[in-house]
């Protein structure tokens, strides 16, 4: 079984600060890590390989530094990694990113399964996984929480939906985006780290995978960011100050009539 895991390198969110003027994330000095939700996809891929045999290829599109995330995935147990990197990719939105990754996947096919995290913790769109499935015309299960069975031809999965869960039987190859319930990511081992340090990770440009200029990057992205701002959260509170018996009973009366007005309580 050949499994492909697209991953993203994201800033470690507990250390992130926001530039108040531009509304964008200050990336300088912030550690980059594998998108935490992608760890579950990597773990699932490793578990499937342990059960079924095969290989796991992790892929990513990002700056040269994204190699660190790919090496971490190798240290956890992935077999090989490929990085898409170059100026031409800069500014890609989810459409262009999905397109670029799908093009790479076409180049390295055949494969049986693509697994990714439900969404990235920085962009938070959850669109790239389904985007890849769409470009490759693959059956898709988002929010996958359990693999019920898998053989050479089919996979049966449970996915979370608002009312509970649904079970899908899909032909392979297919794409799954997974939620945390699916697995529990293992830690990288010393042996894995040693392998990860020396393994050769090919870096492909847009040209290498045959994407014409203008179809990716800022130019190839239909999403235009007009303005980024922080929504103002405003709460108007009324403070009832209790000083003595008299103000206490007054405050209680005012609170009761307020709750009645808002139809929260009624007598």
């Amino acid at each position, binding site marked *: 079984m050949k499994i492909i895991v697209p991953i993203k390198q994201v800033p470690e969110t507990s250390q992130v600060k926001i530039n108040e003027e531009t509304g964008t994330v200050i990336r300088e000095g912030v*550690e980059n890590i594998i998108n935490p939700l992608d760890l579950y996809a990597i773990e699932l891929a490793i578990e499937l390989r342990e059960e079924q045999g095969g290989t796991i290829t992790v892929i990513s599109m990002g700056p040269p530094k994204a190699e660190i995330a790919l090496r971490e995935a190798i240290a956890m147990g992935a077999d090989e990694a490929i990085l898409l990197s170059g100026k031409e990719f800069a500014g890609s939105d989810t459409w262009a990113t999905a397109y670029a990754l799908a093009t790479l996947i076409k180049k390295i096919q055949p494969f049986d399964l693509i697994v990714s995290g439900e969404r990235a913790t920085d962009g938070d769109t959850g669109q790239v996984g389904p985007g890849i499935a769409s470009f490759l015309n693959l059956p898709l299960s988002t929010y996958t929480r359990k693999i019920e069975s898998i053989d050479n031809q089919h996979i049966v999965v449970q996915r979370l939906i608002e009312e509970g869960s649904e079970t899908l039987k899909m032909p392979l190859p297919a794409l799954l985006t997974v939620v945390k319930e699916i697995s529990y990511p293992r*830690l*990288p081992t010393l042996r894995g*780290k*040693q392998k990860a340090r020396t393994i050769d990770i090919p870096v492909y440009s847009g040209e290498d995978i045959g994407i014409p200029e203008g179809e990716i990057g800022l130019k190839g992205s239909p999403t235009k960011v007009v303005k980024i701002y922080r929504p103002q959260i405003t709460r108007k509170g009324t403070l009832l100050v209790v000083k003595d018996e008299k103000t206490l009973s007054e405050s209680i009366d005012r609170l009761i009539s307020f709750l009645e007005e808002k139809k929260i309580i009624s007598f």
Partner: protein
Amino acid sequence: MKYNPVSHSIVEKLIEICGEHYVFVDKEKLEPYTHDETPTEQFSHFPEVVVMPRDTGQVAQIMRLAYENGIPVTPRGAGSGLSGGAIPAYGGIVVSLDKMNKILEIDTQNMMVTVEPGVITNEVNEKVKELGLFFAGYPMSVETCFIGGNVAENAGGGRAVKYGVTDRYIMGLEVVLPDGEIISLGGKRVKDVTGYNLKQLFIGSEGTLGIVTKIIVKLLPLPSVIIDLLILFKNIKQAIQIVPKIMLETRIIPTSLEFMDQLSVQTSCQYLNEHLPYQEAGAMLLVEVDGNNQEVVEAEAETIGELCLEQGALEVYVADNYTTQERVWAVRRNIPEAFKVVSPQQSVEDIVVPISVIAVVVEEIQEIAQKYDILIPCYGHAGDGNLHATLVKNPRHSYKKWLEIEHQILLELYHLIKEKGGTISGEHGIGLKRKDYLSIVCSEEEINLMRKIKKTIDPKNIMNPGKIFEE
């Protein structure tokens, strides 16, 4: 010891000194000041009044008032102590240093900060991180404890193998003495042999000699590369035996060298919903190395990892980024909380022995546990020989039985530790919890000398009385 009660007029005077918002006498408001992290049923005691001074002058006035009226005073930091040090054993006044929480100066030229005692230890590090500096003291409660408490207890923690404990970084202190006098000890001097080292006397004095109101802390350059190894061993013996070897054979001094037995890891993992393969591992070590050169630190981590594999370790996990490091340290840090869920009745011990005998000691502790039919998980700072063997009440035992056997076990444990060249507390202090056992490890002459020192500085015995030893 007879003390005077806190009368209405004393409360009035305290309000005059600190203002009415900073003095409480209501029972509900006093309750949080009755205990620290030791079991409440065993050690708690109500103060008569809590005051929150905002500067040294107010602390001095409070002490003078207490001194003139013979009222006991207990200073209090964050209340995260583990020996009952902040509990007002004789009632009286609790002086909470909560409002004295300012970082007064960051002196980059000398790499020192001057802080008030109520600053949260972690805040110092947050503040100086941008300057590429850090305070190397690292109590495990770093996110809650106050630096004043660290000084009072001479706190140790997870980085002591390489960086030592709190006192190494305390350059100067301002202290209010029991009679209200204010003295200044030490200063921004790396070397200082001017007379007796009184500053050192106050560090670790558990609030029994005075109230620290200002602290000069030495900082170090912040290492930019940190790698943690979580190493799984088949059994405790294998894990512990490797501890001295790590330093001797690799010639690397790790930042941390923590030990956790299976029960500790399992309980913490279940508490955190963490899925480490603890079923197979009888014990784990958590080893941290740090430095500024990526390749050097990686090589050091690898050398230690290889040594452990060579000696039969089952697996070596590597955590070199925030996500994985948080995961492995969370397991270690949450052990005490996790055991509170198992049983709130427990005794967190803080024994320290020469590292060469840890393996034997851990084995003998397990024999004691079996003999009394309770659990004694062991975890802690193996690189310092400092283990938090924790007596956890067997849920089938009655509370009365627990109290009986707890005392028996402590006696047995402490005698064992003494015999092995160790002592009963490495970093938590004696406080209320261990004072009845002090004579096991300290001679009568030594305790008498301590009493004389105490009497000289605090002739009326009003400063945190009832701690360390009876008067």
